[in-house]
């Protein structure tokens, strides 16, 4: 009977491990292997070339990636942490509205966000030009581009990590801790330094590493804004375009190493310190702000913040109403209509990318759902040797930058193998769903894990005790109870798949272009309106999904991070 249990675990585990080894581990190893081929022979030639002092381009890209990432961490922290404090410690008019708007950058797919920033603050951007006209200046007072552009986009999208982790920690700090410190005679500053800050440190460190990793992997921002400025994730793309696969592999390996070492450091740090509060459900009481001046200053900061945060969304909306060809030499667009949206339905060539994206994302997400539930069930509820190994494989796609995942797939599935049933996947329809699937394994497994961990083992046992077989128990007890968690993760995976750019740009085929590729093409042809209309479709999809998760499954968007 014990053997029967073990056999059943194996029955679930073997397909999981096959998928993980075949489509996650093997492609990574394939890339590593490729990086040791230099001009037809095995060796470290590629690495020598990477670090060679003669051509500095790679080293420069590595250095740029690292310092942009460090600066991104700093900027994001400077915005996110104070906001978290203001919105969670003080009560003032509009607080809860402002605090929910603060996570809006999450509703902007990276490519669309970058596009919005270009139109807002770029050379011919609306804001610099508006200021120029308003004050009658000769030239635009400022413009973003290159490093500053990348940094601003990063700060805008990534401060949310700081905002959310710090907010949730502040909310979970038992107010009696601070009160106890005050009661013992500590001053405000002492309490902050000795009590609040140490409790916040894990959240801040966690968010820093998250921002660092995300910046290292960032692709869309440098792709559209950098203009000749080298970063590592972009170098991989260029090496691939130039057909230098060995160098692309080498760059991928180095980028992965940096990324994974930071991840490991984060794991180590989080295990070392555990400050989680024991008592639950105590909402920190917020102080009412009594000083009128301070109060309205806070409200003003809130309002300005909301405007800044919403400007990109508004810009995309406005742009999507501008018919292409009607806004050429003028500073501001003048003709607005719904033509771009009408074209979507009238012109199949314009509708097709939307259809492709939805199909690709649907297939990938369906795979994620089935695979995620089985994997998570095995990981959480079953005993077997090597659980850590399986867990690490599940998390690997999360640690790998998207560009690297794309490169891995190109290198692994550019040839026939049993994993692809004897086909060459690269250049076919199936490579993109596979890429999206792999990218989002960690997301779905993690959200399902969280739901399953909440599920008390005794429920399953009670059902078995009442005579239910395993499958019946799973269907009637386990699934209904974890479904909200599972679906929220799955829906998020779906919208991310619809917006996915870095792997798409590496792997797409001409007659199967997803939306983000079409946005890129339209931008190249200066069809801003059509690009923005595509962007609006992505934004609305994300908004709908977040709304559904929140309303029907009671899932808070911030939990999905």
């Amino acid at each position: 009977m014990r053997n029967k249990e073990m056999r059943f675990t194996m029955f679930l585990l073997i397909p999981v491990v096959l998928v993980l080894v075949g489509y996650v581990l093997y492609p990574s190893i394939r890339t590593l292997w490729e990086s040791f081929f230099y001009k037809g022979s095995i060796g470290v030639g590629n690495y020598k070339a990477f670090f060679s002092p003669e051509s500095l381009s790679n080293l420069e890209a590595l250095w740029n990636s690292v310092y942009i990432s460090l600066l991104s961490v700093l900027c994001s922290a400077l915005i996110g942490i104070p906001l978290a404090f203001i919105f969670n410690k003080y009560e003032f008019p509009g607080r809860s509205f402002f605090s929910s708007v603060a996570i809006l950058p999450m509703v902007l797919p990276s490519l669309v966000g970058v596009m919005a920033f270009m139109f807002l603050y770029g050379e011919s951007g609306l804001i610099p030009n508006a200021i120029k006209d308003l004050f009658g200046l000769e030239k635009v007072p400022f413009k973003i581009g290159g490093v500053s552009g990348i940094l601003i986009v990063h700060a805008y999208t990534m401060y949310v990590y700081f905002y959310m982790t710090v907010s949730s920690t502040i909310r979970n700090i038992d107010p009696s801790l601070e009160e106890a410190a005050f009661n013992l005679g500590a001053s405000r500053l002492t309490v902050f330094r000795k009590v609040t800050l140490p409790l916040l440190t894990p959240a801040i460190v966690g968010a820093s590493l998250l921002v660092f990793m995300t910046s290292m992997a960032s692709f869309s921002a440098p792709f559209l804004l950098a203009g000749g400025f080298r970063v590592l994730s972009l170098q991989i793309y260029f090496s691939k375009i130039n057909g230098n696969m060995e160098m692309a592999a080498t760059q991928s390996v180095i980028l992965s190493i940096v990324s994974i070492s930071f991840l490991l450091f984060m794991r180590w740090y989080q295990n070392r310190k555990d400050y989680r509060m024991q008592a639950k459900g105590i909402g920190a009481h917020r102080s009412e702000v009594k000083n009128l001046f301070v109060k309205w200053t806070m409200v003003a900061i809130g309002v300005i913040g909301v405007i800044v945060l919403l400007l990109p969304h508004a810009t995309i909306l406005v742009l999507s109403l501008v018919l292409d060809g009607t806004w050429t030499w003028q500073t501001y667009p003048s003709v607005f209509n719904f033509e771009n949206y009408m074209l979507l339905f009238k012109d199949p060539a314009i509708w097709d990318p939307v259809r492709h994206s939805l199909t690709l994302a649907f297939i990938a997400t369906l795979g994620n759902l089935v695979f995620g539930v089985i994997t998570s069930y095995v990981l959480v509820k079953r005993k077997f040797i090597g659980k850590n190994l399986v867990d690490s494989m599940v998390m690997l796609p999360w640690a790998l930058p998207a560009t690297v995942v794309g490169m891995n797939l190109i290198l692994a599935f550019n040839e026939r193998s049993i994993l692809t049933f004897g086909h060459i996947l690269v250049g076919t329809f199936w490579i993109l769903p596979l890429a999206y699937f792999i990218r989002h394994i960690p997301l779905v497994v993690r959200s399902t894990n969280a739901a399953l961990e909440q599920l008390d083992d005794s429920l399953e046992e009670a059902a078995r005790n009442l005579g239910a077989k395993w499958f019946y128990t799973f269907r009637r007890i386990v699934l209904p109870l974890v479904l909200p968690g599972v679906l929220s993760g799955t829906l998020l995976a779906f919208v991310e798949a619809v917006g996915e750019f870095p792997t798409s740009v590496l792997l797409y085929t001409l007659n199967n272009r997803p939306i983000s590729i079409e946005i890129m093409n339209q931008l190249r042809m200066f069809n801003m309106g059509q690009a923005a209309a595509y962007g609006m479709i992505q934004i609305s999809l994300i908004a709908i999904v977040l709304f559904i998760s929140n309303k029907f499954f009671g899932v808070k968007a911030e939990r999905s991070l």
Partner: protein
Amino acid sequence: MSSITLKHVTKKFNTFSAVKELNLEIKEGEFFTFLGPSGCGKTTTLRMIAGFYYPTIGTIHFGDKDMTRVAPEKRNTGMVFQNYALFPHMTVFENVAFGLKVRKCAKSEVITRVEEALRKVRLEQLIDRQVSQLSGGQQQRVALARALVIEPDILLLDEPLSNLDARLRDEMRAEILRLQREYRITTIYVTHDQVEALTMSDRIAVFNTGECQQVGTPKQIYDEPANDFVASFIGETNLLSIQLAREDDEKIYVRLENDETTEMVIPKDRSNTIKDTPSALSIRPEAVEVSTKELEGANCFQGTIEMVQFTGAAEHLFIKVGEQTIQALVLNNHLWSERKKGESVWIRFPGEYVWIIPNVLGEGAHEK
């Protein structure tokens, strides 16, 4: 309904033995209790009977059927979990009907049987409630109804009352007993509460560190505990380390440790030890005779009052005799509460209430 037989059951988690060499026979229709301190292996044993763990060594029979390795869903046991384990996404009706649906009962039968079961636990008016809206005691009843409705051969209860407050506990205790008597179902009840065990059980098995110390009726366990662990775990008792001095046909003569002079005389049938093993003398506080006047004869000692505790119905006396403190319990007769610390009293250990037992807790365990 069926009897349960455990033979040589041992359960190891890796190298740690949670249950060691357990032999038990539980009769048909019996209310059988596993009693012991936390971590002594009660739940582990119960889960082996339910089929959630399999013994490392040994066998489990229901009647004469070998169930040792049968899957939990094929055992037809009804289990009530410590946290109730009610399915939170189902109503009271759906929870109770679950086992019947699994057994593919006809719809009409399901309805009548669920209603019947809920009537038995007096919850028929809450049949359509969501279980999260019920109070602790009501949830407990749903869990009971859910376990009973499938007409299990065996009812298994794992500390079912430990999450309830004191008054509800009394009420539910009576309820469980009533249902058990009504269904006449073989029941195993796990608890660490000795009062619960003594008041409810037909028989009790006392566990300590994975080993069964004694099986017996509540009276046997209380009056004739197998060793000093059982004696001290159940009720209050005075435990004194002793040495056997000599014996004749009817009596044995013992000496207290550190007291060479006094010899105590005890009827032979009040001893449960084997010669030359470390032994202890146990006497319950209510059996100790106390007097303000000098007592004459065997087994008498002089002592001084250390403390008097008034509890309403009775008075607890703590009396210092030599190095030892003896507890005595007398009914509240206004004689003792006036007594001051340091006053002289005489006590007697009546031979017929003394119980000589093996000392398994080890050297020095009885010094206060």
